[in-house]
């Protein structure tokens, strides 16, 4: 059951990720990204961490993507009219070839790898909080929040020239 769900979610994530980069209309890309993020959340849930799964949806699929869509709709971005020129096509072809190579390599590694027993994994909310607020990670955690705060203040300062 878990495996079926995992492969379904993984396939959905991959297909919608392709939609994100393949679509000309940016709104479709945004919706593709939302589906990708939701399927990733399913995978987090399957890994035994409903907390991270819920946060993934709340923060990324919910808050951040709504902002993306909001801006896209506010600016009323039309889909790209012009097809990319010759140079763009060549570059695209090279990129696709590279990605295909990467996928093939990853597949080869996966096929050769012996599926060992999954390590004991406790990602409950309490355990996560204990790790996050342990002396080992506390300073990193606090530093991250200060970094985000600084970015916020910086964004406001850039957007609003006259106070």
């Amino acid at each position, binding site marked *: 059951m878990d495996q079926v769900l995992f492969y379904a979610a993984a396939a959905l994530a991959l297909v919608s990720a392709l939609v994100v980069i393949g679509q000309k209309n940016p709104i479709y890309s945004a919706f593709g990204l939302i589906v990708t993020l939701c399927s990733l959340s399913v995978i987090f849930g399957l890994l035994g961490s409903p907390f991270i799964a819920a946060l993934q*949806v709340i923060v990324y699929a919910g*808050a951040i993507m709504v902002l993306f869509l909001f801006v896209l*709709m506010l600016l009323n971005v039309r889909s790209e009219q012009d097809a990319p020129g010759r140079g763009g096509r060549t570059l695209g072809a090279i990129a696709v070839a590279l990605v295909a190579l990467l996928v093939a390599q990853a597949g080869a590694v996966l096929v050769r790898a012996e599926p060992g027993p999954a390590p004991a994994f406790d990602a409950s909310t309490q355990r996560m909080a204990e790790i996050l607020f342990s002396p080992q990670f506390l300073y990193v955690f606090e530093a991250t929040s200060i970094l985000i705060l600084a970015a916020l203040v910086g964004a406001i300062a850039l957007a609003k020239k006259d106070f």
Partner: protein
Amino acid sequence: MTASPLVQELVIAAVKVAVIMGALLGVFSLMTWIERRVLAFMQFRLGPNRTGPFGILQPIADGIKLFFKEEVMPAAANKWAFLAAPVVAVGTSFLAVAVLPYGPPFTLPRLAFLPTWLWPEWLWGRSVQLQIATIDVGLLFIFAIAALGVYGVVLAGWAANNKYSLIGGLRSSAQMFSYELSLGLSFVGVIMLAGSFQINDIVSSQAGRAAGWFLGWNAFVQFPAFLVYFAAATAEVARTPFDLPEGETELVAGFHTEYSSMRFALIQMAEYINMITVAVLATNLFLGGWHSGVPGVPSEGLLGFVFWGGKVALLLFVFIWLRGTLPRFRYDQLMHFGWKVLIPVAAAWILVIASFVTFWAR
């Protein structure tokens, strides 16, 4: 013949889903009538009173009318997005419903006079609760689904390719993500005091306080959080005074201007289901769930359902009451209230509760 445990669980789950969905749809259609009647009385009118006794059959008449109306889709609309938007709206509103408890756990009676195919022996004395899924992060799940619910509105507003729809969609996305923050922050104090994300734990944590009196409920213990929750939730379901997304005086009908017939009904249904969800959540998180609030008055079984249902009905009435009383906010007032009043109050309250939990409670 006894069915295997898996079959038993599946049967119980299916019946629960059927009962909860049926009850929600019933309450939804009744609410459309009650709201119009109550609003009418508040405005010295009569409201719909022609169809059936007191007009109670009005929702059925409305349903038939909407069913036979022509479905219109604007020529310039984005077809798939236009079709998907009501589905997204209804889907997310029904997903959130799944993790809420509806009333207390109760024991199924032993009804030996019923035929065994209808009431088999393995049901006798079994304890069940009207809750489809009991998950550990129930509250976070609801919050996540509420975050996704915005997309139904955004998609509807964008897909119709109509300027009123687009402005309505933009307004509601801005409003929803502004008020989602204070909604989430208002939960935090509740979660910290209960020490759990699970809604059943939060309900029972309130019953033990203040010797079982209603003063121990979160609505009284955490009064600021309750106020923030109620304001943010009203904005989240876009009810007056926060109904700017469909402000009909400026925007025709906002994001659902171009929707007609059953698709309009679906959007309407999503809005009412969201409103019921918000009321049920407030009852469970802040108003002590199915507990009576008076020591000595039992809150098990049928009586619990009465208390629980009464609280939900009261909250739903308050929503209608607000609509009949308050004028709509102006857009800048809305943003000001959300960002500069609700969020600081909620954040300060988290600080209070966090210091209480850290320094006194443990």
